């Protein structure tokens, strides 16, 4: 779809989303909306590193957790503001991503997956066991809602607008990145890395950049979500979040910006709509994951693309 058709649509959708707290009085629904927005941002970041660059990074979970903890600690332990907390969350994650990315990206793709998984686990261990810093399994409760320019985002609706503004800003940034030359280069790297090198481009700086940017964005998203929950503890690093982001990317279509965004907004609302027991919900996740890999490995966007290509082939023969 051409940018000229989809951008106005996206803008309209964004504005429609802003209206949510005005059309419902249920705090619960607004809360679901907040989750939808933030999970979509995290999924879009995963899409950048996995869908666009081809790196299946489980480290996103670690960055999400670090983001949450850094933001919380900035406010509670260091007396800073929520906004500084978000900034530090993004910056620290970017630095960590560069530090672990540099050696890890030079290994093969198999080791990359395992190392990123390990990183996420290590963060969980630190969150649980470095009690002096993170307060261990009890976590950090009673996180105060932030304020800005004299405005206090205390109620769920007000926090929704904070989350909305954050999400729109992050998605706009990611969109600009994905549709730029850099985004195109990432796609090229994913498709045919040797060719990229033969064309004078070194893939490493691009992979590192994608990895670090995804880390920063995910960290900030983690910070925003943490203050929505009002508490952070090691459960924030539960694999459940990684699975959610992953499923959004896969259903939407890895490598499709709008596919993932659409999937994120729709799928985040679904678990709430299908209020099953936790186990059953997870079983459905698992089944979706496996089924998608067989039936629609490139997600909805990929399936639409295949049909478009088939039609093109017909026309050109």
């Amino acid at each position, binding site marked *: 779809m051409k940018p000229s058709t989809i951008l106005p649509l996206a803008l309209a959708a964004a504005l429609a989303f802003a209206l949510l707290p005005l059309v419902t009085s249920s705090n619960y629904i607004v809360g679901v909306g907040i989750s939808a927005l933030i999970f979509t941002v995290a999924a879009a970041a995963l899409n950048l590193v996995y869908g666009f660059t081809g790196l299946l990074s489980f480290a996103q979970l670690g960055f999400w957790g670090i983001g949450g903890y850094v933001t919380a600690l900035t406010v509670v332990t260091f007396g800073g503001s929520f906004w500084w907390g978000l900034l530090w969350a993004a910056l620290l994650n970017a630095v960590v991503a560069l530090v672990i990315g540099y050696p890890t990206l030079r290994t093969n793709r198999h080791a990359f997956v395992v190392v990123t998984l390990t990183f996420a686990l290590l963060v969980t261990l630190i969150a649980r066991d470095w009690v002096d810093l993170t307060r261990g399994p009890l976590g950090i409760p009673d996180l105060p809602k932030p304020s800005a320019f004299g405005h206090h985002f205390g109620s769920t609706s007000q926090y929704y607008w904070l989350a909305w503004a954050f999400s729109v800003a992050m998605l706009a940034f990611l969109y600009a990145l994905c549709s730029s030359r850099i985004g195109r280069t990432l796609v*090229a790297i994913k498709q045919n890395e040797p*060719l990229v090198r033969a*064309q004078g481009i070194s893939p490493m700086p691009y992979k590192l950049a994608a990895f670090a940017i995804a880390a920063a964005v995910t960290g900030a998203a983690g910070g925003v979500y943490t203050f929505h929950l009002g508490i952070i503890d090691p459960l924030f690093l539960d694999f459940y979040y990684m699975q959610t982001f992953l499923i959004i990317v896969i259903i939407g279509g890895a490598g499709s910006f709008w596919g993932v965004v659409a999937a994120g907004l729709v799928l985040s609302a679904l678990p709430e709509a299908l209020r099953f027991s936790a186990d059953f919900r997870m079983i459905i996740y698992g089944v979706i994951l496996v089924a998608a890999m067989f039936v629609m490995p490139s997600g909805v966007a990929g399936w639409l693309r295949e049909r478009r290509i088939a039609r093109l082939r017909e026309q050109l023969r």
Partner: protein
Amino acid sequence: MSAILEVADLRKSYAGVHALDGVSFSVEAGSVTGLIGPNGSGKSTAIDCISGFQKRDGGRIVLAGADISGRPAHHIARAGLMRTFQTVRIYDRLSLRDNLAVAAQQFDPATWVDELLRTRRYREAVEQAEGRARELVELIGLERYYEIETGILSYGQKKLVALAAALMPRPKIVVLDEPVAGVNPSRIREIEVALAQLNRAGETFLIVEHNVEFITNLCHRVIVLDQGRKLAEGTAHEIHTDARVLEAYLGMTPEMAEAEMRGMA
């Protein structure tokens, strides 16, 4: 004419086997030079070492006077040596236009800041690339596919795309790794014509190939490798009648070859 590419004493071994055992040759600027040899002679290894896709064990490679020995592949490309691959490599999911744009982007001065601010430098770079792309697309006859995903093209068409992409940055030399392998005969002629045209316009090519007719029609000079060493060098005709080449390729002496051909007539 001076040599645009000089290879001196190139060596490469795998597990004790000498894939390349001191190969030396040069490619004249503006020529089409062929590199042939039986399977296992080291042609692909030589190409990979020259273009930076494999580490050589010894020898020097000089491109237009600059030493590119042992440099990483992307440096060598930036220095002006572009190559294609035996199994065709293009970006299947990108349009023909984007394929060519990516091939050119490392060679223009615009940075991401330029792109963000849409500076004149960026707009000019894009325009120039577009112009060159359209030229090349016309040459390879794929105009109607300009905005279409290259994944739908046939194998032979993809080879043409790969050729065009290699030519986008106006390289000093283009190294083609079996450009017509697996391509159907009508297309082979197309590729031959395109290469001849490009050469007349000043492009230099080093072509690794098995297809003898193709090499004979196109190449000014032919280098023959066998078992990691240079066996012979000369014009296509000289190579055809060289005893050592015949023996290496066909395992026979010139007399036997002549007898064979008479037997076939």
